[in-house]
């Protein structure tokens, strides 16, 4: 029998606010343990939370960017559980009135992955386990999160990955989170079940907690998919439970025993008042949203004639997309600019982080000026490429490397004279060419380029020299 994978994700995204959700402590990552704390975020009795306006704003942005309905009336609730990373013994979250509901993310294959809800809540502190002892750092406690809950619409590991990548790209694009999985600012809980291909019923699901990298998520899902199928095919049953992925052993293990079965006893948070958002406020936030990644990719394809893959690569990093648009401003041929960025410039931005930061050695205006010279036919591609390398190396504008003499075409007679002398001075290459080695002409073109400082039209030179050589005895 063949089995279908069914999966839904709960994605936690840390919001890029300056301060925590209920107090004015900084959200900065790192720092000495328990230094970004106050009586509110370590849950001392008698303190009162006060909701950060920006958290609501960001969550609404996230909802709008994922086609959600924004609820005009929303409230906070207490989710009760006792665990040392949660100093109040309850987490302030949202239960039955989340800020956003009923959205979706569209995958490249056209399938829509439904988003059930997006709600706001506080992060827990960080536990450090050492030699059988447990220590707590509450710096992360109270950092604002949005939890994005998907419908069980995901049907493959590849779809799960694409869904998270799209979410990540959208959240980064609209600036609500940096979504760094390695720093834990984006983490996923994966719900997964299997069912016979063609069935409409859901199987019993398990939940794998806290996936903090794509690799781990894919491996854990593959393992769990196989494990559930093996269980069912050998006549067993899947138990609904929460699992932990053990990357060292490559297995999932149950996280809590039955005695800890979920019973969060949610109730309304009495210390916080209702959140009302008017339609006008929601519209104002919608107007504020930047162009979303999918729209941007589509525009690059239709307006600029970029191939889809190139458009996706540019848009993947918001700052690179902005750089591209700034450099291409006013140019007829944006494709050249895209090629410069994806080729030579990307070679200087090795890590994802460098691309993320848009840390290009030259400002977009410099690239624009170079591309403009090329577009106006003042320089040839060869010269443009070597110049760009020099610019990236030094951070200087193209005018530092291209002189007036470099610009403009070489007239036909001059080119012919140069070609003739190159042919005359390279009997070996000529002989190779005449002996059937077509490639030999490339070496000759190289010589012509060198002598003309890259100004020559390579194709014209090639045609001339081929004619010359064919005319030779």
């Amino acid at each position, binding site marked *: 029998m063949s089995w279908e994978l069914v999966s839904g994700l709960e994605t936690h995204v840390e919001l890029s606010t300056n301060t925590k959700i209920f107090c004015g402590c900084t959200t900065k990552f790192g720092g000495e*343990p328990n230094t970004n704390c106050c009586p509110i975020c370590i849950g001392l009795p008698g303190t009162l939370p006060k909701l*950060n306006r920006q958290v609501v704003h960001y969550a609404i942005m996230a909802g709008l960017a994922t086609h959600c309905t924004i609820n005009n009336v929303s409230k906070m609730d207490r989710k009760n559980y006792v665990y040392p990373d949660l100093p109040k013994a309850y987490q302030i979250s949202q239960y039955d009135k989340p800020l956003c509901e009923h959205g979706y993310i569209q995958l490249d294959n056209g399938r829509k992955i439904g988003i059930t809800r997006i709600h706001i809540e506080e992060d827990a502190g960080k536990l450090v386990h050492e030699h059988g*002892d447990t220590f*707590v750092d509450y710096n992360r406690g109270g950092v604002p999160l949005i939890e994005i809950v998907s419908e069980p619409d995901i049907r493959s590991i590849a779809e799960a990955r694409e869904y998270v990548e799209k979410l990540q790209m959208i959240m980064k694009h609209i600036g609500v989170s940096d979504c760094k999985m390695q720093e834990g600012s984006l983490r996923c809980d994966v719900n997964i079940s299997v069912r016979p291909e063609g069935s409409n019923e859901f199987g019993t699901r398990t939940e794998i907690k806290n996936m903090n990298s794509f690799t781990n998520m894919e491996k854990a899902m593959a393992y769990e998919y196989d494990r559930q199928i093996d269980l069912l095919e050998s006549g067993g049953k899947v138990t609904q439970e929460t699992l932990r992925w053990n990357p060292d052993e490559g297995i999932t293990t149950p996280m809590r025993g039955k005695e800890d079965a979920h019973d969060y006893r949610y109730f309304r948070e009495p210390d916080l008042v209702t959140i009302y958002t008017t339609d006008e406020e929601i519209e104002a936030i919608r107007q504020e949203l930047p162009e979303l990644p999918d729209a941007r990719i589509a525009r690059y394809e239709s307006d600029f004639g970029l191939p889809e893959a190139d458009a996706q690569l540019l848009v993947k990093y918001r700052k690179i997309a902005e750089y591209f648009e700034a450099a291409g401003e006013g140019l007829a041929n944006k494709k050249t600019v895209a090629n410069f960025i994806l080729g030579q410039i990307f070679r200087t931005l090795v890590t994802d982080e460098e691309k993320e930061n848009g840390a290009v050695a030259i400002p977009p205006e410099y690239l624009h000026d170079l591309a403009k010279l090329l577009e106006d036919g003042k320089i040839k591609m060869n010269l443009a490429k070597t110049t760009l390398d020099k610019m990236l190396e030094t951070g200087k504008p193209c005018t530092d490397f291209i002189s007036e003499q470099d610009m403009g075409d070489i007239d036909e007679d001059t080119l012919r004279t140069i070609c003739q002398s190159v042919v005359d001075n390279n009997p070996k290459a000529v002989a190779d060419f005449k002996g059937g080695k077509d490639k030999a002409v490339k070496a000759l073109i190289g010589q012509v380029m060198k002598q003309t400082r890259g100004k020559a039209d390579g194709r014209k030179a090639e045609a001339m020299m081929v004619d010359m050589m064919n005319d030779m005895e």
Partner: protein
Amino acid sequence: MVTREEIENIALLSKLFVAEEELDGLTKEMDQMIAFADTINQATDAGEEFDNINGLQNAFREDEVVPSYPQSEILKNRDGGVDGFFYVAKHK
């Protein structure tokens, strides 16, 4: 009616130790509290709906950093722990 099993479960979730001989008393007390809440539920003409007795809504704070407490203050009441961390006491 609140049952003994419910009390045991609540104790477990709250990580509270309840001795066997305390169970009956606690069950009775909890039952009385719930019964009191039920009295409130009987009210039928509560009038206009409201969700906050003070009529407050949208009480927000601006996203501006205020200095946190010194680490020494935060850790003042900790029991054990090293290097600025709190220590999680073990169950006896």
